């Protein structure tokens, strides 16, 4: 077993433990922190894949920005420990089971088909790592349309948020 495999097992294990902790901790702050741990382990996995840029963005966007906002909201609302009973009803459980089965099918499908997948290989440069340069080039040539559509969606979301917040504050006045 070489160093890369050891690191893969380590990051994978930490990622799984973090993911399980998210749903097993009773306190929302601990759940949120477990999610941060998972994001970190996944960033580690991205680095092992040679995708340094994705790893950095993963930490900046998810661990650095989104989860801080989550913590912020949890702290502001001062959510206490969830009670053991009554939090999850039978409808939610049924829904969760369906989603879980769907996700499992998806996972199996991807695992069976990943051998033929060339999209990752296409982005790799000669050194085996995906550099920011390669990603930029691909985004502005091959994937230009999806990239621009994504940015439009983000813009729409941004404007939507501003409109919603504005309306509320005007009603207050």
């Amino acid at each position, binding site marked *: 077993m070489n160093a890369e495999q050891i690191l893969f097992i380590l990051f994978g294990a930490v990622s799984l433990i973090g993911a399980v902790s998210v749903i097993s901790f009773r306190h929302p702050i601990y759940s949120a922190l477990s999610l941060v741990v998972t994001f970190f382990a996944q960033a580690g996995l991205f680095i092992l894949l040679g995708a340094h840029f994705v*790893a950095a963005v993963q930490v900046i966007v998810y661990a650095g920005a989104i989860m801080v906002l989550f913590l912020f909201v949890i*702290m502001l609302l001062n959510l206490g420990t969830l009670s053991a009973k009554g939090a999850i009803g039978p409808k939610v459980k049924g829904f969760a089971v369906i989603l879980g089965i769907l996700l499992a099918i998806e996972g199996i499908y991807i695992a069976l088909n990943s051998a033929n997948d060339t999209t990752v290989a296409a982005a790799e440069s000669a050194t085996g790592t995906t550099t920011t340069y390669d990603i930029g080039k691909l985004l502005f040539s091959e994937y230009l349309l999806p990239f621009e559509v994504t940015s439009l969606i983000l813009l729409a979301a941004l404007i939507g948020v501003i409109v919603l917040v504005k309306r509320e504050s005007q009603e207050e006045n």
Partner: protein
Amino acid sequence: MENLPLFFILSSIVKIVIIVHLLLIGVMLMIWAERRVSGWMQDRLGPNRVGPQGLLQPIADGLKFMFKEDIIPDHVDKPLYVLAPAMLLVPALITAAVVPFGSSIELFGETINLQIADINIGILYILAITSLGVYGVVLGAWASNNKYSLLGGLRSSAQMISYELTLGLGIIGILMLTSSLSLRTIATEQGAYPWQWNFLIHFPAFLAFTTAMFAETNRLPFDLAEAEQELVAGYHTEYSSMKFAMFFMAEYMNMIVGSAVTVTLFLGGWHFFGLENVGGPVWSGLISFAIFFVKTAIFLFGFIWVRWTLPRFRYDQLMNFGWKFLLPIALTSIVVTGTLWIMTGSRLVVGIGNAVSAFIVVSIVAGMLVMTTPKPAIQESDSRFSPTALDAVE
């Protein structure tokens, strides 16, 4: 992971040990300097009893901290309370891993870069790690289970998220002109003379970045998270002994690393009038390191200087300043730098364009603020804190 040469591993370990110790010594010196310079600026002496010029004062303070009783109050959330100081200190330490502290040294026939790791996403790494610093503050604040701590933590997280944007956008202009994310490449690309350094080409971005860095390090005028008059000591109110010392050290370490990053990005790194090339392969490396050290030290002096020059912002001023001035400046700088660089390819034009456009943007924003602010948002006569209300009582 291929088999790494033994020499590489050994030199890396030596570099890590040296840089970590330099940072810790730097923190000590910085604490001493802050107190002495503060004293000087307020026309008093400052600590000068322990050792020559009071230089050993930080060591005395450190010893005192170690022997203080380490109190963990009953009402805190213990695991997070213990974890929080470390979560602030560790990001501050590991950011230094990608900062190039000098050019390179040739020893035993091998070239050693004066940098722990030259990774190709250097800047993103720094942004990623600094964005984690906020966890220490927020968790410390929440785990303390104290309203002053919590208020400090909330203020700090809102502030850090707001100013992180400017921090990230401010460096994009540099990335466009250097077309590299590696800090070593950015430092090397800047020439030997001050007018070739990035701070002139990207002057508005430089100002925005530096200001945002002050906010990220929670220094005056952005230290609302620990505003003494309002929040006792903010997020570290409940901390004592070495746990408090760790918060304290993290603040100074953040300042040092922040200054080092600014010097690398904007102030030419280790370049100074070609002085860094004087001497042989060993000496030039050491001289470049000394130049970098002096530049960082001067920048750190600026931190103390600003502290005793500018008063603390009010919270709404802080948010207005971050979102309505710094962010537009950073965004304009990206657009102008990109457009002019494609059109002319001249650094001079980009520099002038940046300065002019930032001036226009600031004028427009200031004008709009003046035009759209009708009356004071809070009706002064209704507020029991307003001077007019006091008059009415009297």
